[in-house]
């Protein structure tokens, strides 16, 4: 597997996992709150950029911390940890696929937090609130985004060139934010955010299915790397 293929893998998996109903809801809620308060385009831009920058920094930090922690371990230990992480990824992927069949039919661990986030994004729409909303979103999406991110970081630990690892994580995180950037640019061009909200509500089961399958496939790629089928 060449470096270009790995970067493409990171980018594509990030794009598939980016269709996360939580981040889409938080971001569109924030923008709708900003528009509802009569903010000018420059103020709306500041709110959106604050949210996106903080989210990018937090996701990148998680990826880089995971990478550095894994690199501290011995080679044999990394391999055993990698198998364990792949199993976690597969289990989480199955839970996400379950959402496609029965959406929301379980207790959310962070339901109260999600409720508070919703209140915050609709009532307050300044850059500071946007940053706080971003941190809360990053926390809520720890399993859905964090697990694939850690699997990508684990794949990076077997790369011969360490600088490629940072680039792979950057590609993955950038791909995670691409739909949000596209929504923001489209809203500036006149797209109604209510259409995005409706599309998200109609398709959230499918989004979870895609996220689940992507996480499982990433875990399988990691296992194929470990058993020597795919070589770097």
């Amino acid at each position, binding site marked *: 597997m060449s470096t270009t293929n790995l970067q493409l893998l990171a980018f594509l998996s990030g794009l598939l996992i980016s269709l996360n109903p939580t981040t889409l809801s938080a971001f569109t809620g924030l923008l709708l709150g900003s528009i509802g308060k009569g903010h000018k385009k420059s103020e709306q831009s500041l709110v959106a950029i604050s949210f996106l920058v903080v989210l990018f920094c937090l996701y990148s930090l998680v990826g880089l911390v995971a990478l550095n922690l894994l690199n501290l371990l011995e080679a*044999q230990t990394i*391999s*055993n940890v990698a*198998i364990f992480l*792949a*199993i976690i990824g*597969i289990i989480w*992927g*199955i839970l996400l*696929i*379950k959402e*496609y*069949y*029965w959406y929301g039919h379980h207790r959310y661990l962070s339901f109260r937090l999600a409720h508070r986030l919703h209140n915050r994004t609709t009532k307050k729409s300044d850059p500071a609130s946007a940053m706080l909303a971003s941190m809360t979103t990053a926390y809520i999406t720890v399993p859905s985004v964090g697990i694939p991110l850690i699997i990508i970081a684990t794949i990076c630990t077997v790369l011969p060139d360490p600088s490629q690892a940072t680039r792979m994580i950057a590609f993955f995180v950038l791909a995670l934010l691409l739909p949000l950037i596209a929504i923001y640019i489209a809203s500036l061009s006149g797209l109604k955010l209510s259409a995005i909200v409706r599309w998200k509500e109609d398709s959230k089961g499918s989004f979870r*299915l895609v996220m689940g*399958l992507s996480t*499982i*496939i990433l*875990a*399988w790629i990691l*296992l*194929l790397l*470990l*058993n*020597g*089928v795919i070589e770097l």
Partner: protein
Amino acid sequence: MGTVGLEPASQIVADLSIRAVLAALVLIIFLIIFTSAVRKNQSAKVIIFITLVSIVAVVSTILCTTAYLHLQDTAMLMQQGYIQ
């Protein structure tokens, strides 16, 4: 009479792993397409979901086992000095 060549075990493992993953992906896609046709039928959804989970579990078990055995073999060969 010619000699019979045996494929190295690692090659067999590689073939098995790749075939398992590809077959699983094809079956999963088929099951998802089938789900959209029977969305209203609860029992069918349960059966499809259980089948999907079983496929994922079987393939994952194969991959985890082969990965673990490969890592054990590599560690043993490194200890004996055959590879570095």
